[in-house]
């Protein structure tokens, strides 16, 4: 048997390896960088910078609507974005109004607010921020916020009447907000906000989405319907570096990069094995 055949046999063996070995290798390459960080550099992309610049350009005391549309299942991607955006908004003394199109979003928002608004900035509920909470109905809720937010949210998440909340004075519909940021993991989320709120009213909006949504949302960014986007965990890590406050996204990026390299290697090996197999089957 020639040396080339021997090498081909090795590739064929790799190609037919039990998939459970691949799962174990992926687990190892994800766990090791979490335990022993490499500290790979993070450079902000244009889309992330645009989000940062848009929020930075808002005058002090602007009304910012922050919509939380994700659940614990996508927490590693969306939650660091929400935390970073909240830090940026509270640091710049903006008024933050939080709504949720997803039921679990309310708990994600409460978690982030406890950490950032209460723990880091000592902000006052009802004066600096308000959690309006979750309302079911998807795009109907977005339409409701656009036309008359008070009709939809007569009480906030704490069951306080919105008329009794000081920062709700003068807020009647979507046009009363200066900026919208949607932290989204799917439907209803960013796309519905573009279609039913930002486009018809002209209020600028931006979004932080899961990686899987990036391709869907990117056309809105390219066409200017959205101001930048935070794309998945890398987007969150970039934003953490932009506001100079590292968090869970930054620490996850080493594992992310190493895992990607290994996956690319598997794809290459799998393809080599496939072509060798095809060549041999043609031969015989």
């Amino acid at each position: 048997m020639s040396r080339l055949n021997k090498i081909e046999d090795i590739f064929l063996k790799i190609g037919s390896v039990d998939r459970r070995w691949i799962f174990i290798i992926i687990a190892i390459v994800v766990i090791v960088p979490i335990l022993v960080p490499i500290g790979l550099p993070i450079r902000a992309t244009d889309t992330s910078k645009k989000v940062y610049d848009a929020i930075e350009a808002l005058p002090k005391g602007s009304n910012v609507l922050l919509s939380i549309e994700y659940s614990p299942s996508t927490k590693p991607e969306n939650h660091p974005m929400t935390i970073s955006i909240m830090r940026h908004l509270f640091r710049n003394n903006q008024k933050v109004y939080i709504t949720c199109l997803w039921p679990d979003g309310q708990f994600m928002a409460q978690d982030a607010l406890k950490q950032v608004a209460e723990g880091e900035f000592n902000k006052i509920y009802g004066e600096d921020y308000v959690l309006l909470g979750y309302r079911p109905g998807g795009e109907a809720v977005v339409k409701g916020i656009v036309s008359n937010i008070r009709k939809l949210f007569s009480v906030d998440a704490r069951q306080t009447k919105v008329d009794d909340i000081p920062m709700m004075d003068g807020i009647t519909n979507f046009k009363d907000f200066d900026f919208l940021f949607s932290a989204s993991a799917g439907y209803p989320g960013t796309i519905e906000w573009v279609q039913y709120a930002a486009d018809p009213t002209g209020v600028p909006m931006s979004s932080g989405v899961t990686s899987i949504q990036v391709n869907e949302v990117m056309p809105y960014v390219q066409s200017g319907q959205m101001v930048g986007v935070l794309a998945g965990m890398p987007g969150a890590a970039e934003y953490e570096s932009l506001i100079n406050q590292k968090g869970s996204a930054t620490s996850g990026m080493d594992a992310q990069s190493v895992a990607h390299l290994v996956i690319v290697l598997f794809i290459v090996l799998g393809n080599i094995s496939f072509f060798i197999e095809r060549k041999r089957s043609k031969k015989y």
Partner: protein
Amino acid sequence: MEFSAILGAWVATFLTIGIFSYLYKDNPFYKVAEHLFVGVSAGYLLSLGFWTQLQPNLFGRLFPAKHYDPDTITYTIYNVLSFFSSTIFPEGGIDKGHDQHLTYLIPLVLGVMMLLSLIPRLSWMARWGIAYVVGMAAGLKAYGYLNSNVLGQIKGTAVNLFDFNLPIFSLSSPSIFNNLIIFVGTICGLLYFYFSKEHKGLLGKASKIGIYFLMISFGASFGFAVMGRISLLIGRFTDLIKFSGSDYSYATFWVLLIIVSALGYAAYQEKDADTLASTDNVDSSTK
């Protein structure tokens, strides 16, 4: 640390490792985690939908505390309902800041009609409720889609190819080269979906270029999907590492040990049973 936090960590660890155990093979730990997830999600959604929408926004508008008058028919009905459940219908009306809107009887009736699909004889009534929802959603979607996805995107792709104020090449910001890519990609991508003429000659070549653009887009989607899944895996592992500490009574190690031991023992038993069965087969064939 509070007992509830430790218990929560143990439950989360068990459910995470239980779900991961499916990568080895289907097993009872995975089934428990899966069924628990489906059941809890359904119950949670139902409860949240009721207490955040139906109770405050529907009943709260039909029986608001603001207009409470026990002598009216509406509030007589309310008081009867209140007798059965004072949590949903508290004494003195529902105080959620609404005025009374009896027009909300229409969604209530439509909602009840939808539930009638459970009774075969009356299931036809459910169509009215479904028809309303479908019609409303279609109407709502049509405008939003046309405005943002059709007009907005046409506007976005209508780029000036000869804007000499732009640089010739740039990686991500607007440039003549990027505008050319947008123009060629859009036209060729659309031509690929033009089926009224056979894809031959110039049309064939253009549609082939369109396929390449589509393939690049699918490749990017796949890449992002992988990235998303790895991010979620990182999230789970980060939690498992956190729960493996002494603060959580080494939850990860114990749960992992229990599940791996149980699966290992089951595999051993299975192997033993297979060996016995094959020995029996050999014996019976010899006889």
